[in-house]
Protein backbone atom coordinates (compact mmCIF):
# COMPACT_ATOMS: atom_id res chain seq x y z
CA UNK A 1 0.00 0.00 0.00
CA UNK A 2 1.38 3.41 -0.96
CA UNK A 3 1.56 6.35 1.47
CA UNK A 4 -0.93 8.16 -0.78
CA UNK A 5 -3.51 5.41 -0.23
CA UNK A 6 -2.90 5.53 3.55
CA UNK A 7 -3.60 9.25 3.55
CA UNK A 8 -6.85 8.74 1.58
CA UNK A 9 -8.05 5.99 3.94
CA UNK A 10 -7.12 8.16 6.93
CA UNK A 11 -9.12 11.07 5.55
CA UNK A 12 -12.18 8.85 4.92
CA UNK A 13 -12.07 7.48 8.49
CA UNK A 14 -11.70 11.00 9.88
CA UNK A 15 -14.73 12.12 7.83
CA UNK A 16 -16.84 9.24 9.18
CA UNK A 17 -15.86 10.14 12.78
CA UNK A 18 -16.62 13.85 12.28
CA UNK A 19 -19.94 13.10 10.55
CA UNK A 20 -20.91 10.65 13.33
CA UNK A 21 -20.20 13.30 15.92
CA UNK A 22 -22.34 15.77 13.97
CA UNK A 23 -25.34 13.43 13.73
CA UNK A 24 -24.97 11.96 17.24
CA UNK A 25 -24.20 8.45 15.97
CA UNK A 26 -22.63 7.03 19.10
CA UNK A 27 -21.66 3.32 19.07
CA UNK A 28 -21.87 3.31 22.88
CA UNK A 29 -25.57 4.13 22.67
CA UNK A 30 -25.98 1.14 20.36
CA UNK A 31 -24.31 -1.16 22.87
CA UNK A 32 -26.42 0.28 25.68
CA UNK A 33 -29.59 -0.25 23.62
CA UNK A 34 -28.97 -3.93 22.89
CA UNK A 35 -30.74 -5.20 26.03
CA UNK A 36 -33.89 -3.40 24.78
CA UNK A 37 -34.05 -6.01 22.00
CA UNK A 38 -34.38 -8.68 24.66
CA UNK A 39 -37.30 -6.77 26.16
CA UNK A 40 -39.02 -6.62 22.75
CA UNK A 41 -38.39 -10.34 22.25
CA UNK A 42 -39.89 -11.01 25.67
CA UNK A 43 -42.94 -8.88 24.78
CA UNK A 44 -43.35 -10.87 21.56
CA UNK A 45 -44.07 -13.99 23.56
CA UNK A 46 -46.63 -12.13 25.62
CA UNK A 47 -48.64 -11.16 22.51
CA UNK A 48 -51.90 -13.07 22.36
CA UNK A 49 -52.05 -15.57 19.45
CA UNK A 50 -55.27 -13.95 18.18
CA UNK A 51 -53.10 -11.22 16.60
CA UNK A 52 -51.39 -13.68 14.28
CA UNK A 53 -54.36 -14.12 11.91
CA UNK A 54 -54.62 -10.30 11.76
CA UNK A 55 -50.95 -10.08 10.88
CA UNK A 56 -51.32 -12.74 8.16
CA UNK A 57 -54.40 -11.04 6.76
CA UNK A 58 -52.58 -7.67 6.71
CA UNK A 59 -49.68 -9.36 4.92
CA UNK A 60 -52.06 -10.90 2.39
CA UNK A 61 -53.56 -7.46 1.77
CA UNK A 62 -50.03 -6.11 1.25
CA UNK A 63 -49.21 -8.85 -1.24
CA UNK A 64 -52.39 -8.11 -3.18
CA UNK A 65 -51.51 -4.41 -3.31
CA UNK A 66 -48.04 -5.25 -4.58
CA UNK A 67 -49.52 -7.65 -7.15
CA UNK A 68 -51.98 -5.12 -8.57
CA UNK A 69 -49.28 -2.46 -8.59
CA UNK A 70 -46.83 -4.72 -10.41
CA UNK A 71 -49.28 -5.89 -13.08
CA UNK A 72 -50.89 -2.52 -13.77
CA UNK A 73 -47.55 -0.72 -13.58
CA UNK A 74 -45.99 -3.14 -16.05
CA UNK A 75 -48.96 -2.79 -18.41
CA UNK A 76 -48.46 0.98 -18.44
CA UNK A 77 -44.67 0.67 -18.62
CA UNK A 78 -44.66 -1.57 -21.71
CA UNK A 79 -45.92 0.93 -24.31
CA UNK A 80 -43.79 3.64 -22.70
CA UNK A 81 -40.70 1.45 -22.99
CA UNK A 82 -41.39 0.94 -26.71
CA UNK A 83 -41.49 4.72 -27.12
CA UNK A 84 -38.33 5.18 -25.05
CA UNK A 85 -36.19 2.66 -26.97
CA UNK A 86 -33.56 4.38 -29.07
CA UNK A 87 -33.48 1.65 -31.70
CA UNK A 88 -37.20 2.03 -32.46
CA UNK A 89 -37.81 5.77 -32.39
CA UNK A 90 -36.41 9.11 -33.41
CA UNK A 91 -34.83 11.40 -30.84
CA UNK A 92 -37.96 13.55 -30.72
CA UNK A 93 -39.98 10.62 -29.40
CA UNK A 94 -37.60 8.84 -27.04
CA UNK A 95 -36.02 11.89 -25.41
CA UNK A 96 -39.22 13.32 -23.85
CA UNK A 97 -40.47 9.86 -22.82
CA UNK A 98 -37.15 9.10 -21.14
CA UNK A 99 -37.25 12.45 -19.34
CA UNK A 100 -40.75 11.65 -18.07
CA UNK A 101 -39.67 8.21 -16.85
CA UNK A 102 -36.61 9.67 -15.14
CA UNK A 103 -38.87 12.18 -13.38
CA UNK A 104 -41.16 9.37 -12.17
CA UNK A 105 -38.19 7.43 -10.83
CA UNK A 106 -36.84 10.41 -8.94
CA UNK A 107 -39.59 10.00 -6.33
CA UNK A 108 -39.23 7.03 -3.97
CA UNK A 109 -42.47 5.12 -3.58
CA UNK A 110 -43.08 6.50 -0.10
CA UNK A 111 -43.22 10.04 -1.48
CA UNK A 112 -45.66 8.89 -4.18
CA UNK A 113 -47.71 7.35 -1.37
CA UNK A 114 -47.85 10.68 0.50
CA UNK A 115 -48.94 12.40 -2.71
CA UNK A 116 -51.71 9.87 -3.34
CA UNK A 117 -52.86 9.92 0.30
CA UNK A 118 -53.39 13.65 -0.21
CA UNK A 119 -55.21 12.96 -3.50
CA UNK A 120 -57.43 9.97 -2.71
CA UNK A 121 -57.30 9.85 1.09
CA UNK A 122 -55.86 7.34 3.57
CA UNK A 123 -55.99 3.66 2.76
CA UNK A 124 -54.81 0.89 0.49
CA UNK A 125 -55.80 2.56 -2.79
CA UNK A 126 -53.24 5.31 -2.27
CA UNK A 127 -50.65 2.59 -1.67
CA UNK A 128 -51.60 0.74 -4.86
CA UNK A 129 -51.28 3.95 -6.88
CA UNK A 130 -47.85 4.61 -5.38
CA UNK A 131 -46.67 1.13 -6.32
CA UNK A 132 -48.06 1.57 -9.84
CA UNK A 133 -46.07 4.77 -10.32
CA UNK A 134 -42.89 3.29 -8.96
CA UNK A 135 -43.29 0.19 -11.14
CA UNK A 136 -43.93 2.27 -14.27
CA UNK A 137 -40.71 4.21 -13.75
CA UNK A 138 -38.57 1.16 -13.15
CA UNK A 139 -40.00 -1.50 -15.43
CA UNK A 140 -40.07 0.96 -18.34
CA UNK A 141 -36.39 1.69 -17.82
CA UNK A 142 -35.41 -1.98 -17.48
CA UNK A 143 -37.54 -2.84 -20.48
CA UNK A 144 -36.26 -0.15 -22.86
CA UNK A 145 -32.76 -1.19 -21.93
CA UNK A 146 -33.68 -4.79 -22.77
CA UNK A 147 -35.18 -3.69 -26.11
CA UNK A 148 -32.03 -1.76 -26.94
CA UNK A 149 -29.91 -4.86 -26.40
CA UNK A 150 -32.02 -7.00 -28.77
CA UNK A 151 -29.93 -8.50 -31.54
CA UNK A 152 -30.15 -6.11 -34.50
CA UNK A 153 -29.96 -8.95 -37.06
CA UNK A 154 -33.58 -10.14 -36.87
CA UNK A 155 -34.70 -6.51 -36.69
CA UNK A 156 -32.83 -5.70 -39.91
CA UNK A 157 -33.93 -8.89 -41.65
CA UNK A 158 -37.62 -8.35 -40.83
CA UNK A 159 -37.38 -4.64 -41.57
CA UNK A 160 -36.05 -5.47 -45.03
CA UNK A 161 -39.40 -7.15 -45.81
CA UNK A 162 -40.91 -3.67 -45.55
CA UNK A 163 -43.18 -4.43 -42.56
CA UNK A 164 -44.75 -1.68 -40.46
CA UNK A 165 -43.23 -0.59 -37.18
CA UNK A 166 -46.09 -2.23 -35.25
CA UNK A 167 -45.51 -5.52 -37.01
CA UNK A 168 -41.81 -5.26 -36.17
CA UNK A 169 -42.69 -4.69 -32.50
CA UNK A 170 -45.24 -7.51 -32.45
CA UNK A 171 -43.12 -10.14 -34.21
CA UNK A 172 -39.54 -9.28 -33.24
CA UNK A 173 -39.30 -6.85 -30.34
CA UNK A 174 -41.88 -8.43 -28.03
CA UNK A 175 -40.82 -12.07 -28.49
CA UNK A 176 -37.13 -11.22 -28.21
CA UNK A 177 -37.58 -9.18 -25.04
CA UNK A 178 -40.39 -11.20 -23.42
CA UNK A 179 -38.14 -13.41 -21.33
CA UNK A 180 -36.53 -10.31 -19.86
CA UNK A 181 -39.97 -8.91 -19.12
CA UNK A 182 -41.06 -11.94 -17.07
CA UNK A 183 -37.88 -11.83 -15.08
CA UNK A 184 -38.31 -8.10 -14.49
CA UNK A 185 -41.90 -8.55 -13.34
CA UNK A 186 -40.84 -11.16 -10.81
CA UNK A 187 -38.06 -8.95 -9.54
CA UNK A 188 -40.45 -6.01 -9.35
CA UNK A 189 -43.11 -8.00 -7.49
CA UNK A 190 -40.53 -9.18 -5.00
CA UNK A 191 -39.38 -5.61 -4.53
CA UNK A 192 -42.91 -4.19 -4.37
CA UNK A 193 -43.93 -6.52 -1.53
CA UNK A 194 -41.12 -5.02 0.54
CA UNK A 195 -42.05 -1.50 -0.55
CA UNK A 196 -45.73 -1.97 0.19
CA UNK A 197 -44.89 -3.22 3.67
CA UNK A 198 -43.64 0.23 4.63
CA UNK A 199 -46.20 2.35 2.73
CA UNK A 200 -48.54 2.03 5.73
CA UNK A 201 -46.15 4.30 7.60
CA UNK A 202 -47.66 7.23 5.70
CA UNK A 203 -51.19 5.88 5.90
CA UNK A 204 -51.32 4.13 2.55
CA UNK A 205 -52.56 0.77 3.85
CA UNK A 206 -50.97 -2.63 4.12
CA UNK A 207 -49.19 -4.28 7.02
CA UNK A 208 -47.03 -1.20 7.65
CA UNK A 209 -50.13 0.64 8.83
CA UNK A 210 -50.46 -1.80 11.76
CA UNK A 211 -46.75 -1.67 12.52
CA UNK A 212 -46.61 2.13 12.74
CA UNK A 213 -49.71 2.23 14.93
CA UNK A 214 -48.36 -0.36 17.39
CA UNK A 215 -45.09 1.56 17.57
CA UNK A 216 -46.97 4.80 18.26
CA UNK A 217 -48.67 3.14 21.25
CA UNK A 218 -45.44 1.51 22.47
CA UNK A 219 -46.73 -2.00 21.74
CA UNK A 220 -43.35 -3.17 20.49
CA UNK A 221 -44.13 -6.85 20.92
CA UNK A 222 -47.06 -6.71 18.48
CA UNK A 223 -45.06 -4.56 16.08
CA UNK A 224 -42.27 -7.14 16.20
CA UNK A 225 -44.67 -10.01 15.42
CA UNK A 226 -45.95 -8.13 12.35
CA UNK A 227 -42.40 -7.34 11.26
CA UNK A 228 -41.50 -10.99 11.62
CA UNK A 229 -44.39 -11.90 9.29
CA UNK A 230 -43.02 -9.43 6.72
CA UNK A 231 -39.55 -10.94 7.02
CA UNK A 232 -40.72 -14.51 6.54
CA UNK A 233 -42.99 -13.59 3.61
CA UNK A 234 -40.27 -11.64 1.82
CA UNK A 235 -37.79 -14.47 2.29
CA UNK A 236 -40.33 -16.91 0.89
CA UNK A 237 -41.14 -14.76 -2.16
CA UNK A 238 -37.44 -14.24 -2.78
CA UNK A 239 -36.84 -17.98 -2.71
CA UNK A 240 -39.87 -18.71 -4.93
CA UNK A 241 -38.92 -16.14 -7.54
CA UNK A 242 -35.40 -17.53 -7.80
CA UNK A 243 -36.92 -20.98 -8.40
CA UNK A 244 -39.31 -19.67 -11.08
CA UNK A 245 -36.55 -17.70 -12.78
CA UNK A 246 -34.27 -20.74 -12.94
CA UNK A 247 -36.96 -23.03 -14.19
CA UNK A 248 -38.64 -20.96 -16.88
CA UNK A 249 -36.73 -17.84 -17.71
CA UNK A 250 -33.05 -18.67 -17.89
CA UNK A 251 -33.91 -21.65 -20.06
CA UNK A 252 -35.74 -19.61 -22.66
CA UNK A 253 -33.08 -16.91 -22.70
CA UNK A 254 -30.18 -19.16 -23.53
CA UNK A 255 -31.99 -21.89 -25.35
CA UNK A 256 -30.79 -24.61 -23.05
CA UNK A 257 -32.04 -26.56 -20.18
CA UNK A 258 -30.86 -25.63 -16.73
CA UNK A 259 -29.99 -28.69 -14.74
CA UNK A 260 -31.53 -28.47 -11.31
CA UNK A 261 -30.64 -30.97 -8.66
Amino acid at each position, binding site marked *: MTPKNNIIIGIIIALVVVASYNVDANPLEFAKGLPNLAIVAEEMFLVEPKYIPTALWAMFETIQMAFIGTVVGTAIALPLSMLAARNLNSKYVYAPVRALLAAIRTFPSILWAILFVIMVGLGTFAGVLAIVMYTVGFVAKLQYEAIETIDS*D*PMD*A*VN*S*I*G*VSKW*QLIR*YVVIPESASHLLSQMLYMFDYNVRQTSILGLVGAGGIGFYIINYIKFFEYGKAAIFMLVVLVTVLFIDWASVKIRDKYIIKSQHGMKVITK
Partner: protein
Amino acid sequence: MKQIQMTQNPSFSLISTNKIIQMNNVWTSYDSKNFALEGINLSISRGTNYAIVGQSGSGKSTLLKLMNGMMIPSKGTIKIDYVTPNINNKKFKKMMHTIGYIPQSLGLVKNITVLENILIGALPRLTKLQSLFKKFPESEIQEAKRIMSLVGLSGKEDRKAYMLSGGEKRRVAIARALMQKPTILLADEIVSELDHVTAREIMNLIADAQKRMNLTAIMVHHDMQLALEYANRVAVIKEGRKILEIGVEGDTIVDFQTGDLNTEEIMEMYSDDTKK
Protein backbone atom coordinates in the same frame (compact mmCIF):
# COMPACT_ATOMS: atom_id res chain seq x y z
CA MET B 1 -28.78 -25.46 -78.92
CA LYS B 2 -29.12 -21.99 -77.45
CA GLN B 3 -31.07 -20.90 -80.55
CA ILE B 4 -33.59 -23.73 -80.13
CA GLN B 5 -34.21 -22.87 -76.50
CA MET B 6 -34.98 -19.30 -77.38
CA THR B 7 -37.47 -20.17 -80.12
CA GLN B 8 -39.18 -22.69 -77.88
CA ASN B 9 -39.70 -20.10 -75.22
CA PRO B 10 -39.94 -16.72 -76.94
CA SER B 11 -40.99 -14.95 -73.74
CA PHE B 12 -37.67 -15.92 -72.21
CA SER B 13 -35.65 -13.73 -74.55
CA LEU B 14 -38.11 -10.89 -74.04
CA ILE B 15 -37.86 -11.08 -70.26
CA SER B 16 -34.12 -11.55 -70.27
CA THR B 17 -33.57 -8.19 -71.95
CA ASN B 18 -35.47 -6.63 -69.09
CA LYS B 19 -32.86 -5.41 -66.61
CA ILE B 20 -34.30 -5.77 -63.12
CA ILE B 21 -31.27 -4.34 -61.34
CA GLN B 22 -29.06 -1.57 -62.63
CA MET B 23 -26.19 0.07 -60.83
CA ASN B 24 -24.33 2.96 -62.35
CA ASN B 25 -21.00 4.12 -60.94
CA VAL B 26 -22.04 3.36 -57.36
CA TRP B 27 -19.82 4.51 -54.49
CA THR B 28 -20.52 3.96 -50.82
CA SER B 29 -18.58 5.07 -47.78
CA TYR B 30 -18.88 4.57 -44.06
CA ASP B 31 -16.95 7.81 -43.53
CA SER B 32 -15.76 10.52 -45.93
CA LYS B 33 -12.38 8.88 -46.63
CA ASN B 34 -12.87 5.13 -46.85
CA PHE B 35 -15.05 3.75 -49.59
CA ALA B 36 -16.61 0.31 -49.32
CA LEU B 37 -17.55 0.34 -52.99
CA GLU B 38 -15.75 2.31 -55.68
CA GLY B 39 -17.58 2.91 -58.93
CA ILE B 40 -19.55 -0.31 -59.30
CA ASN B 41 -21.48 -0.92 -62.51
CA LEU B 42 -23.86 -3.86 -62.55
CA SER B 43 -26.73 -4.80 -64.75
CA ILE B 44 -28.72 -7.90 -63.91
CA SER B 45 -31.44 -9.38 -66.10
CA ARG B 46 -34.69 -10.71 -64.74
CA GLY B 47 -34.57 -14.40 -63.94
CA THR B 48 -30.80 -14.61 -63.66
CA ASN B 49 -29.03 -16.67 -61.04
CA TYR B 50 -26.34 -14.16 -60.27
CA ALA B 51 -23.36 -14.64 -57.99
CA ILE B 52 -21.11 -12.05 -56.44
CA VAL B 53 -17.78 -13.43 -55.29
CA GLY B 54 -15.13 -11.77 -53.20
CA GLN B 55 -13.15 -12.00 -50.00
CA SER B 56 -14.44 -10.65 -46.71
CA GLY B 57 -14.30 -6.89 -46.62
CA SER B 58 -14.48 -6.62 -50.41
CA GLY B 59 -17.83 -4.86 -50.23
CA LYS B 60 -20.07 -7.68 -51.46
CA SER B 61 -22.50 -7.58 -48.50
CA THR B 62 -22.78 -3.83 -48.99
CA LEU B 63 -23.91 -4.47 -52.56
CA LEU B 64 -26.86 -6.55 -51.31
CA LYS B 65 -27.85 -3.96 -48.72
CA LEU B 66 -27.90 -1.34 -51.48
CA MET B 67 -30.23 -3.53 -53.54
CA ASN B 68 -32.82 -3.88 -50.77
CA GLY B 69 -32.74 -0.24 -49.73
CA MET B 70 -31.21 -0.79 -46.30
CA MET B 71 -28.23 1.32 -47.42
CA ILE B 72 -28.02 4.33 -49.70
CA PRO B 73 -25.04 4.99 -52.02
CA SER B 74 -23.00 8.13 -51.47
CA LYS B 75 -22.58 8.53 -55.24
CA GLY B 76 -24.11 6.96 -58.33
CA THR B 77 -27.55 5.58 -59.14
CA ILE B 78 -29.31 2.29 -58.45
CA LYS B 79 -32.58 1.19 -60.00
CA ILE B 80 -34.52 -1.87 -58.96
CA ASP B 81 -37.28 -2.32 -61.51
CA TYR B 82 -36.82 1.38 -62.34
CA VAL B 83 -37.29 2.46 -58.71
CA THR B 84 -34.50 3.85 -56.53
CA PRO B 85 -34.13 1.61 -53.48
CA ASN B 86 -34.59 3.45 -50.19
CA ILE B 87 -36.52 2.18 -47.18
CA ASN B 88 -38.00 5.65 -46.65
CA ASN B 89 -39.44 5.74 -50.17
CA LYS B 90 -43.05 4.54 -50.03
CA LYS B 91 -43.02 3.06 -53.52
CA PHE B 92 -39.87 1.10 -52.79
CA LYS B 93 -41.11 0.00 -49.37
CA LYS B 94 -43.95 -1.76 -51.22
CA MET B 95 -41.42 -3.42 -53.51
CA MET B 96 -39.50 -4.65 -50.45
CA HIS B 97 -42.46 -6.93 -49.73
CA THR B 98 -41.31 -9.08 -52.65
CA ILE B 99 -37.55 -8.79 -52.21
CA GLY B 100 -36.39 -11.73 -50.12
CA TYR B 101 -33.25 -10.89 -48.18
CA ILE B 102 -31.29 -13.49 -46.24
CA PRO B 103 -28.47 -11.86 -44.29
CA GLN B 104 -25.38 -13.85 -43.35
CA SER B 105 -26.65 -13.96 -39.76
CA LEU B 106 -30.03 -15.20 -41.14
CA GLY B 107 -31.93 -12.84 -38.83
CA LEU B 108 -34.36 -15.39 -37.39
CA VAL B 109 -36.42 -14.45 -34.36
CA LYS B 110 -35.02 -16.88 -31.79
CA ASN B 111 -37.91 -17.13 -29.34
CA ILE B 112 -40.74 -17.88 -31.77
CA THR B 113 -41.50 -21.07 -33.67
CA VAL B 114 -40.35 -22.13 -37.12
CA LEU B 115 -43.86 -21.62 -38.52
CA GLU B 116 -44.14 -18.12 -37.03
CA ASN B 117 -40.73 -17.20 -38.41
CA ILE B 118 -41.82 -18.30 -41.88
CA LEU B 119 -45.17 -16.51 -41.63
CA ILE B 120 -43.29 -13.25 -41.05
CA GLY B 121 -42.74 -13.33 -44.81
CA ALA B 122 -46.52 -12.97 -45.26
CA LEU B 123 -46.89 -9.98 -42.90
CA PRO B 124 -47.18 -7.37 -45.68
CA ARG B 125 -50.30 -9.18 -46.93
CA LEU B 126 -52.05 -9.04 -43.54
CA THR B 127 -54.45 -6.40 -42.26
CA LYS B 128 -53.53 -4.42 -39.14
CA LEU B 129 -55.91 -6.40 -36.94
CA GLN B 130 -54.77 -9.76 -38.31
CA SER B 131 -51.14 -8.98 -37.61
CA LEU B 132 -51.90 -7.56 -34.16
CA PHE B 133 -53.66 -10.74 -33.05
CA LYS B 134 -51.39 -13.11 -34.99
CA LYS B 135 -54.45 -14.26 -36.96
CA PHE B 136 -52.96 -15.56 -40.17
CA PRO B 137 -55.50 -16.55 -42.85
CA GLU B 138 -55.75 -20.32 -43.33
CA SER B 139 -54.48 -19.92 -46.92
CA GLU B 140 -51.25 -18.33 -45.66
CA ILE B 141 -50.72 -21.10 -43.12
CA GLN B 142 -51.25 -23.72 -45.84
CA GLU B 143 -48.79 -21.86 -48.08
CA ALA B 144 -46.24 -21.77 -45.24
CA LYS B 145 -46.65 -25.51 -44.72
CA ARG B 146 -46.26 -26.14 -48.43
CA ILE B 147 -43.01 -24.15 -48.47
CA MET B 148 -41.86 -25.98 -45.35
CA SER B 149 -42.19 -29.32 -47.06
CA LEU B 150 -40.43 -27.87 -50.09
CA VAL B 151 -37.40 -26.85 -48.05
CA GLY B 152 -37.47 -30.02 -45.92
CA LEU B 153 -38.83 -28.66 -42.67
CA SER B 154 -42.04 -30.68 -42.40
CA GLY B 155 -42.94 -31.63 -38.86
CA LYS B 156 -40.78 -28.88 -37.33
CA GLU B 157 -43.54 -26.23 -37.26
CA ASP B 158 -43.58 -25.84 -33.49
CA ARG B 159 -39.85 -26.05 -32.90
CA LYS B 160 -38.41 -22.79 -31.49
CA ALA B 161 -35.89 -21.20 -33.83
CA TYR B 162 -33.07 -21.32 -31.28
CA MET B 163 -33.35 -25.12 -31.11
CA LEU B 164 -32.46 -25.68 -34.78
CA SER B 165 -29.20 -26.77 -36.38
CA GLY B 166 -27.27 -24.48 -38.72
CA GLY B 167 -28.67 -26.16 -41.83
CA GLU B 168 -32.25 -26.05 -40.52
CA LYS B 169 -31.92 -22.37 -39.64
CA ARG B 170 -30.91 -21.65 -43.22
CA ARG B 171 -33.93 -23.57 -44.48
CA VAL B 172 -36.17 -21.42 -42.26
CA ALA B 173 -34.59 -18.24 -43.59
CA ILE B 174 -35.10 -19.44 -47.17
CA ALA B 175 -38.70 -20.41 -46.42
CA ARG B 176 -39.35 -16.97 -44.90
CA ALA B 177 -38.00 -15.36 -48.07
CA LEU B 178 -40.08 -17.65 -50.33
CA MET B 179 -43.16 -16.84 -48.22
CA GLN B 180 -42.77 -13.26 -49.46
CA LYS B 181 -43.62 -14.54 -52.99
CA PRO B 182 -40.43 -12.83 -54.07
CA THR B 183 -39.35 -11.56 -57.47
CA ILE B 184 -35.80 -11.00 -56.22
CA LEU B 185 -33.91 -13.15 -53.73
CA LEU B 186 -30.79 -11.76 -52.07
CA ALA B 187 -28.66 -14.14 -50.03
CA ASP B 188 -25.46 -13.23 -48.21
CA GLU B 189 -22.95 -16.10 -47.81
CA ILE B 190 -25.78 -18.39 -46.90
CA VAL B 191 -23.74 -21.61 -47.07
CA SER B 192 -20.28 -20.42 -46.07
CA GLU B 193 -20.39 -21.96 -42.60
CA LEU B 194 -21.88 -25.31 -43.66
CA ASP B 195 -20.25 -28.60 -44.54
CA HIS B 196 -20.05 -29.53 -48.24
CA VAL B 197 -23.05 -31.84 -48.31
CA THR B 198 -25.41 -29.48 -46.50
CA ALA B 199 -24.11 -26.53 -48.51
CA ARG B 200 -24.97 -28.32 -51.77
CA GLU B 201 -28.42 -29.24 -50.43
CA ILE B 202 -29.16 -25.63 -49.58
CA MET B 203 -27.82 -24.38 -52.91
CA ASN B 204 -29.92 -26.91 -54.82
CA LEU B 205 -32.96 -25.76 -52.88
CA ILE B 206 -32.43 -22.17 -53.91
CA ALA B 207 -31.58 -23.12 -57.51
CA ASP B 208 -34.86 -25.10 -57.71
CA ALA B 209 -36.93 -22.26 -56.32
CA GLN B 210 -35.15 -19.80 -58.58
CA LYS B 211 -36.00 -21.78 -61.68
CA ARG B 212 -39.55 -22.62 -60.69
CA MET B 213 -40.54 -19.11 -59.64
CA ASN B 214 -38.38 -17.42 -62.30
CA LEU B 215 -36.72 -15.48 -59.51
CA THR B 216 -33.80 -13.18 -59.90
CA ALA B 217 -31.42 -14.65 -57.34
CA ILE B 218 -28.36 -12.67 -56.29
CA MET B 219 -26.10 -14.66 -54.04
CA VAL B 220 -22.92 -13.57 -52.38
CA HIS B 221 -20.18 -16.19 -51.96
CA HIS B 222 -16.56 -16.35 -51.14
CA ASP B 223 -16.20 -19.71 -52.87
CA MET B 224 -15.66 -19.28 -56.62
CA GLN B 225 -16.21 -22.98 -57.35
CA LEU B 226 -19.69 -22.87 -55.78
CA ALA B 227 -20.56 -19.72 -57.71
CA LEU B 228 -19.51 -21.23 -61.06
CA GLU B 229 -21.48 -24.37 -60.30
CA TYR B 230 -24.82 -22.65 -59.72
CA ALA B 231 -24.84 -19.18 -61.26
CA ASN B 232 -25.45 -18.07 -64.86
CA ARG B 233 -23.32 -15.07 -64.24
CA VAL B 234 -20.58 -14.28 -61.75
CA ALA B 235 -19.11 -10.93 -60.75
CA VAL B 236 -15.86 -10.82 -58.81
CA ILE B 237 -15.48 -7.93 -56.38
CA LYS B 238 -12.15 -6.94 -54.92
CA GLU B 239 -11.58 -4.01 -52.59
CA GLY B 240 -14.82 -2.38 -53.65
CA ARG B 241 -14.28 -2.72 -57.40
CA LYS B 242 -15.69 -5.15 -59.90
CA ILE B 243 -12.63 -6.81 -61.42
CA LEU B 244 -14.33 -9.48 -63.49
CA GLU B 245 -17.74 -10.43 -64.78
CA ILE B 246 -18.29 -13.74 -66.49
CA GLY B 247 -21.21 -15.60 -67.93
CA VAL B 248 -21.52 -19.33 -67.36
CA GLU B 249 -23.17 -21.45 -70.01
CA GLY B 250 -22.71 -25.11 -69.18
CA ASP B 251 -18.97 -25.73 -69.30
CA THR B 252 -18.18 -22.59 -71.22
CA ILE B 253 -17.37 -19.40 -69.47
CA VAL B 254 -17.64 -16.10 -71.24
CA ASP B 255 -15.58 -13.22 -70.02
CA PHE B 256 -17.23 -10.01 -71.10
CA GLN B 257 -13.92 -8.28 -71.60
CA THR B 258 -11.51 -10.83 -73.04
CA GLY B 259 -13.62 -13.46 -74.75
CA ASP B 260 -13.96 -17.14 -73.98
CA LEU B 261 -12.03 -18.71 -71.16
CA ASN B 262 -12.14 -22.10 -69.52
CA THR B 263 -12.90 -22.78 -65.89
CA GLU B 264 -9.28 -23.35 -64.96
CA GLU B 265 -8.17 -20.03 -66.36
CA ILE B 266 -10.94 -18.24 -64.49
CA MET B 267 -10.05 -19.99 -61.25
CA GLU B 268 -6.44 -19.00 -61.78
CA MET B 269 -7.34 -15.43 -62.56
CA TYR B 270 -9.60 -15.27 -59.56
CA SER B 271 -7.01 -16.62 -57.20
CA ASP B 272 -4.32 -14.33 -58.63
CA ASP B 273 -6.54 -11.33 -58.27
CA THR B 274 -7.88 -12.03 -54.86
CA LYS B 275 -4.95 -13.60 -53.12
CA LYS B 276 -2.22 -11.18 -54.17
